[in-house]
């Protein structure tokens, strides 16, 4: 993949927190091409969220180069080249659903009519018709995260950064939103970098899965996911799906990260 076609290009990146005490990331090289869906997976402490935040210019790298759309990460942020979705929906609860989705559009100085039109499209995209006037606290967790996705996509950024967006949701809602996200990804043609600690979620969603190892955070391996598109609920039952899940799991185990996905299983039992 040539760097011209890359939406995100990372070379020789490292990140040290504090006065050299904690090396969060070391020697990261990664290219993400246009239209790709790349998942970052790894145990806690592998720096996957930090890597995402560096791409978004929320955190600065200690060493190395990051370019987004051929520009510096900072320039790309100032140009509003990406939309971001956090672990929590981070909705402004004094705003209605429609006003939350319109927030970035207000920043970009869109006029009222244009904003209303786009909000309508976005509400349809995430299937929240009829909830435009609701306030966030009147919605379920899954619906809130859909609003958050609509907000991130509202200004059609070329790149979507997602930091464990479905981590706090129950298994059923998560699987439904996975399908919805794939549909949106196909419809919008955007590039996605997706942080998760669920192996099956990573394999199901991605075109490539980047497996990371902890202390210091490094890329342990990359698995290309050759499952056919569009993926459906039955994709999860195909033998190839299980082979790929196993491949990712073995890579993860080789990093000494046995705790991956077990905490999640415990969580979904509580839910």
């Amino acid at each position, binding site marked *: 993949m040539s760097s011209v076609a890359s939406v995100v290009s990372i070379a020789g990146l490292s990140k040290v927190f504090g006065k050299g005490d904690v090396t969060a990331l070391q020697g990261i090289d990664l290219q993400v091409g246009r239209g790709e869906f790349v998942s970052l997976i790894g145990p806690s402490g592998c720096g996957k969220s930090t890597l995402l935040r560096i791409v978004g210019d929320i955190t600065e790298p200690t060493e190395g180069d990051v370019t987004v759309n051929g520009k510096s990460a900072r320039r790309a942020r100032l*140009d509003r080249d990406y939309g971001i979705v956090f672990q929590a929906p981070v909705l402004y609860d004094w*705003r209605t659903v429609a006003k939350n989705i319109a927030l*970035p559009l*207000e920043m970009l100085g869109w006029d009222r009519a244009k904003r209303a039109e786009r909000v309508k499209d976005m509400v349809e995209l995430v299937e929240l018709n009829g909830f435009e006037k609701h306030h966030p*606290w009147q919605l379920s967790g899954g619906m809130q995260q859909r609003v958050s996705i609509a907000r991130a996509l509202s200004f059609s950024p070329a790149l979507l950064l997602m930091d464990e967006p479905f981590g706090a949701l129950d298994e059923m809602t998560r699987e439904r939103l996975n399908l919805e996200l794939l549909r949106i990804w196909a419809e919008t043609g955007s590039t996605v970098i997706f942080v998760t600690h669920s192996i099956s979620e990573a394999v199901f969603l991605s075109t490539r899965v980047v497996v990371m190892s902890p202390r210091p955070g490094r890329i342990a391996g990359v698995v290309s996911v050759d499952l056919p598109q569009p993926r459906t609920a039955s994709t999860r039952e195909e033998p190839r799906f299980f082979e790929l899940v196993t491949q990712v799991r073995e890579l993860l185990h080789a990093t000494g990260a046995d705790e991956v996905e077990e905490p999640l299983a415990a969580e979904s039992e509580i839910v």
Partner: protein
Amino acid sequence: MPARVGKHVATFLLVLGSLWALWEGYKWLWETTGWTWPFAVDDLTVPHLHSIVLQLGEPTSTGDDLWLYLLHAALFTAKSAAVGFAIGAVVGFVLGVVLAQFDVLRRGVMPYVVASQTIPILALAPILVRGLGSVSINGSPPADWVRVSVIAAYLTFFPVTVNTLRGLRSADPWARELMHSYAARSWTILWKLEVPSALPYIFTALKIAATASVVGAIIGEQTASISNGLGGAILNFNQYYVLEPTNLWATNMYAALLGISFFLLVLLAEKVVVHRAPEHLV
């Protein structure tokens, strides 16, 4: 909705009735037993509630009945208190916003803001009121009620400043990062994130300030020897308390009702302005 209103009215009447029973029961018990602790009870110290209400229909030395005389006084005080409240709220908010932007300024100025509230208002009010009397606006000193409103503002701004400062900092860190991802200017962050996050805090301060502004106006009137308001009425009826204790009690009732009205107006404004999740309402 009507059922809810009915419930509110019932609760209100129940509490009112209980307070009345408590007052009259206390009076009756102390009078019949002759207890003198903590103080002796008779019609002078604890008049019947109904005689306070009946007193409202009696004429005063001005010729007006007491209820009308007190209404005029209350309106005069309300004017100074409302203007003082508005000035105090705006000054308090702006000061809070400015101090929140510059940490150095906050550390430098905050001690003086605190000090301003530790000086007893009784010591400061005469200075403020007299000082303002020597100020000339268009050739004449400011009207009495304007001078009084400055005292009210003085008592109002402090809680607003403190809570604005606290509220502006209460914005969710992720919400700040979201703003950062939009490359938002600090002015935009202030108006679209920090101020909305601070509103529940600010309204808590405004509720405190609403009643404080009424107290401030009354004290301001007394120290400035302005007799048109409730402050003047209190001083006046205080002198004749032994003859007509119910006059002073009735005045206190008006002052309390004025404070409650101010509080309720702020509460109403809060309902209209603040749309937050239940857990974010202070």
